[in-house]
């Protein structure tokens, strides 16, 4: 199936479901569908990497299968696992009147297989977006597993044989770049670095996400956040945090983002004491 017709169609359809993509994002999103290649999204936390995968699923009417990676994720959690407890029960329930032959054919069948996200995504008949989230958190061994799945879209289960995808899922991998992924994984993926949006785009995002936000205050807020991101902070404010900030200002009924208002609500966007001090110093807020 074709996921998107061309880059501009990709941009338009993503915008329909509430994701405002810039040129590079739209082109790469289209390309991943057109070439049938996985898309690797890298960038700081909170720039909308996971959101892009969800938006692709919404825009194309597919279902989202999500594999959240973590340290210690293994084949049994990512791909498939045999349901040992059920197999034990089955053996005990069969008792001694059944031969071993029948039993071992029986306990390695579909009924005892627990499919995990990767296998699920490959076996589905309907259009699927497979999101492999925070892939940099996994161990290197898992990359080998991903390679097998991402290059041929097939998985070999010794007792059942090879499962091949009838319909290729649209694969999105996200990474915060806490470690370099192996060259082999990167070779198989298209690469897109998502960064903080431009001032204009962030303004649009705020306008679409936050109801009742005054245009002038949005402008002030976006400018301040852009300013904060320029400082050498430990943790720069994400898009989600600027949306939170906007909501905070509305909740507190602050009509004008002056120094006092910034100082009072800075905790919404900055989460480190040293960042806080730095911002106060740089933005010249007079705080006691």
């Amino acid at each position, binding site marked *: 199936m074709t996921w998107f017709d*061309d*880059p501009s169609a990709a941009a338009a359809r993503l915008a329909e479901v509430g994701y405002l993509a810039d*040129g*590079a994002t739209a*082109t*790469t999103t*289209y*390309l991943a569908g*057109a*070439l049938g*290649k996985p898309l*690797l999204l*890298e960038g700081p936390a909170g720039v909308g990497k996971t959101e892009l995968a969800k938006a692709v699923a919404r825009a194309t009417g597919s279902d989202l299968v999500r594999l959240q990676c973590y*340290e*210690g994720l293994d084949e049994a959690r990512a791909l498939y696992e045999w349901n*040992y*407890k059920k197999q*034990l029960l089955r053996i*005990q329930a069969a008792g001694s009147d059944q031969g071993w032959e029948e039993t071992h054919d029986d306990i390695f069948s579909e009924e005892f297989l627990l499919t995990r996200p990767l296998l699920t995504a490959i076996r589905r008949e309907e259009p699927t977006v497979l999101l492999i989230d925070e892939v940099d958190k996994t*161990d290197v061994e898992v990359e080998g597993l991903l390679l097998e799945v991402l290059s041929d879209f097939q998985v070999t289960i010794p007792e059942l044989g090879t499962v091949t995808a009838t319909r290729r899922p649209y694969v999105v991998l996200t990474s915060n*770049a*806490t*470690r*370099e992924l192996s*060259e082999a994984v*990167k*070779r*198989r*993926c*298209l*690469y*897109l*670095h998502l960064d903080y949006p431009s001032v204009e785009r962030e303004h649009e995002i705020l306008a679409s996400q936050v109801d009742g936000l005054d245009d002038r205050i949005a402008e002030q807020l976006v*400018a301040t956040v852009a*300013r904060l991101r320029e400082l*050498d902070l*430990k943790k720069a404010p994400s898009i989600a945090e600027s949306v939170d900030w906007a909501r905070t200002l509305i909740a507190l009924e602050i009509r004008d983002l002056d120094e006092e208002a910034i100082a009072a609500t800075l905790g919404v966007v900055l989460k*480190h*004491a*040293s960042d806080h001090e*730095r911002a106060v110093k740089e933005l010249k807020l007079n705080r006691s």
Partner: protein
Amino acid sequence: MADDRQSSGLLDRHLAFVEALRGAGLSVSLAEDLDSVAGLGSVGWGDREQVRQVLAATLAKRQTQRPTFDALFDVYYPALVGDGVSTGSTNDDGSTDEGDAEESPTSSTADAQALQDFRDELAEALRSGDEQELRRLAAQMVGRFGAMPGRGPGLSSWSAYTALQRVAPQQLVDQVVQGLLDEGMDEESAGRRANRRVGAFTALVEGDARRRIAEEKGPDHVADVAVRPTIEQLAFTSARRADLDEMRRQVFPLARRLATRLTQEHHARRRGPLDFRRTVRASVATGGVPITTHHRPKRPHRTDLVVLCDVSGSVANFANFTLLFVFALREVFQSMRAFTFIDHVHEVTDHFRPGADPAQVMADLSAATAHAALFGRTNYGRAFDKFEQSYPDALGPRTTLLILGDARSNYSDLHEDTLRRLAGSVRQSWWLNPEHQRNWGTGDSAAPAYGAIVDMVECRNLTQLSEFVHDLAG
């Protein structure tokens, strides 16, 4: 389609471009090359920015490679040819130069007048921040003020440097700030914006000069000389000011990445002895079959680190970066002490408070350099002696000693016996040298002599540094 490409020379151009990327240190595989061609086939050549995005998505798989990629892309797929006759790419506004680039002013007054007019035009464009206009002006500026006709063969006839010297956009900042203030912007943000725009314009001019040279000599020549390595591969000793700022910004993310990697590797090896009780309890769920085993955690071993840095002019940057980097990894090491020296030793551990601001720390360290010099010339032997006398408590049998410096001791007495004693009193000792290994032992370098006592490692850029620290802490 394929025939078209071959006859138009696009394919050759593309292959040359990929070769240049490989030359600049991007590992582009054949598979990625094929992907990029397939991608272009499906997107088309209509829009230059889209072509750039397609090539970037398929060929450049690291963000740090992006500046290199962009510079080469601009050289191999220029937006305009010659003095700005539009090539039909949608990026240009299609306007060509007014033809004044060709008329060479005859007298110097006319020349000065032309320069003045151009600067006014430029200041106006910088004030409005019109991207298209700035691009056009950059091309015009190199064409008019950066031309160096009649230079000898082998020298390029365009120079961004000359153009920038003559027009001096940096001096326009005040003018631009004033313009922005009149628009009702506050002083601080106006200053920031003006500086940023002038910086961007300078980059445009440099890019345009590269483009013209590429037209003249072929892109491969430019790719060889004009494109700088990525920031992680850039040698400490050849970094410019702007690079240093960029490096400083990179230190903390790099340290964080390394810390994550270390914890992961540490956890992978974490399985200690079997926890019998938990295993048996868990096996109750599976009818007494212990399907999952549980283990006790291992006790982590962590290193005590003592860093001894040469902070004399030639290697000060390297020492500061390494100190910042090691201190960013505070949680990986048990304890840390840092000493700087030129010919006298001075402790700087206190500068690294948790949560301190790296820019501030760098400034403090530079200020502290004064304490490290009595006579102002690097003298390793003397520094080792002083260190042994003043801080005998710093080294113990569980300590790792790290010495940073280029081992250039101005032909003074090396005191190898002192270093041997120091190295003998600790668990392990390393020496990081920011010079290329081929220069060790040339001139007054005592690298071979010291290298015989302490293992000496070449550490010229951030990548090598992080690899070393990884092995040290792992």
